């Protein structure tokens, strides 16, 4: 279970949100909503441990993530704004590198994952020739080969076409149904067949 207690994050001197508390249990999806600049990305980065909150604590299974460090990171798969794709490597190489750095099975089936995100024909193409949407698909393919229960996704649906957006929603639903946790920001309404918890940040 992911637990956030009295969390305050700030940019410079300005507090983005104050004393935020919530928890996400296995089998739950948390949809964070709010206007541009209200601190959604900052919150997600704090949840990953990438940035330090000004105040408050984030706990995983009851222990602060700062104490868990690497142990927490084995439970986590983060897809942020930046796709983490090198233009000079091809799609397969990029995904293989992603699995090798992240928390994926070292024998994960790269070809199958690329096929599921519809990139099998572009697998040998340098990633700089992929479109925005295809790059996004490639970044999201990391989720398919990851074995982490907690997915933290920052606007995963941007640049995706309607068809793949639906595929992705199905993927989220099956992850949650399998006891996974998802924390997601999106300006679109989510049509995921799973219990959705919502937080409005800019209130």
């Amino acid at each position: 279970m992911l637990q956030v207690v009295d969390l305050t994050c700030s940019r410079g001197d300005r507090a983005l949100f104050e004393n935020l508390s919530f928890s996400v249990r296995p089998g739950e999806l948390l949809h964070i909503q709010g206007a541009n600049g209200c601190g959604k990305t900052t919150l997600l980065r704090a949840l990953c441990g990438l940035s330090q909150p000004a105040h408050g604590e984030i706990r995983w299974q009851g222990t602060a993530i700062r104490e868990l460090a690497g142990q927490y990171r084995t439970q986590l798969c983060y897809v942020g704004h930046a796709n983490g794709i090198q233009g000079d490597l091809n799609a397969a190489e990029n995904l293989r590198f992603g699995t090798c750095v992240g928390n994926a099975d070292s024998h994960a089936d790269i070809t199958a994952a690329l096929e599921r995100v519809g990139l099998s024909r572009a697998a040998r193409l340098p990633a700089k020739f992929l479109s925005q949407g295809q790059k996004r698909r490639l970044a999201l393919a990391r989720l398919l080969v990851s074995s982490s229960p907690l997915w933290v996704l920052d606007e995963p649906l941007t640049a995706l076409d309607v068809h793949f957006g639906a595929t992705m929603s199905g993927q989220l639903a099956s992850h949650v149904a399998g006891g996974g946790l998802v924390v997601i920001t999106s300006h679109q309404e989510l049509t995921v067949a799973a219990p959705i918890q919502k937080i409005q940040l800019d209130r």
Partner: protein
Amino acid sequence: MPQTLLGTARCIFRRDLTLAARKPADVATPLAFFVIVTSLFPLGVGPEPNVLSKLAPGVLWVAALLASMLSMGRLFAADYADGTLEQLTLSPHALTPIVFAKVAAHWVTSGLLLVVLSPLLAMQLSLPGQATWTLIATLLLGTPVLSLLGSVGAALTLGVRGGGVLLSLLVLPLYTPILIFGAGAVTASASGLDTTAYFSLLGAFLLLALAFTPWATAAALRISLD
């Protein structure tokens, strides 16, 4: 089973070498700089072999040091821009060995190539044969220290506007001891003196840098990403 630490480090090392091979211009620029700067001296000072061979140790070492510093900018810049660095920090493994793998790959594609080029340029400055061997050995010991120290500066100046100039201000003062003992050893060897002490000191610097800089670089990267 996720990758072991060694597997991850090897994977990062191999990827950075692949990337360097696909962007040869990035690798070639500091090398060309090294060649051009050393070639300017015979043109500026005149072709007198006695003068040139006296200048050679200092010129070669300063040029190698500047070329190595020039190449430091690309160590993390691309990974920072495209978000790979975030993924590296979120790896279940500690960031320090990951940084070490990146610096090692960077040294192979910068410092090691400077060492390979150096005998050719030493010949151009009419450095005696014995001193050329000393030059190669000191550069082999010294350039990894330059890469390791430079990585701290590169991590600290990530995402900063005008980072290149700031990087040189941060790193050049730290490079001076390596320059003094590196060039000193070559000068001593050219005059037929014993160089053991110089090598011991350069070796000590390398050990210290290996022990502390990857850790400092990892901390600086976390600060830059926050």
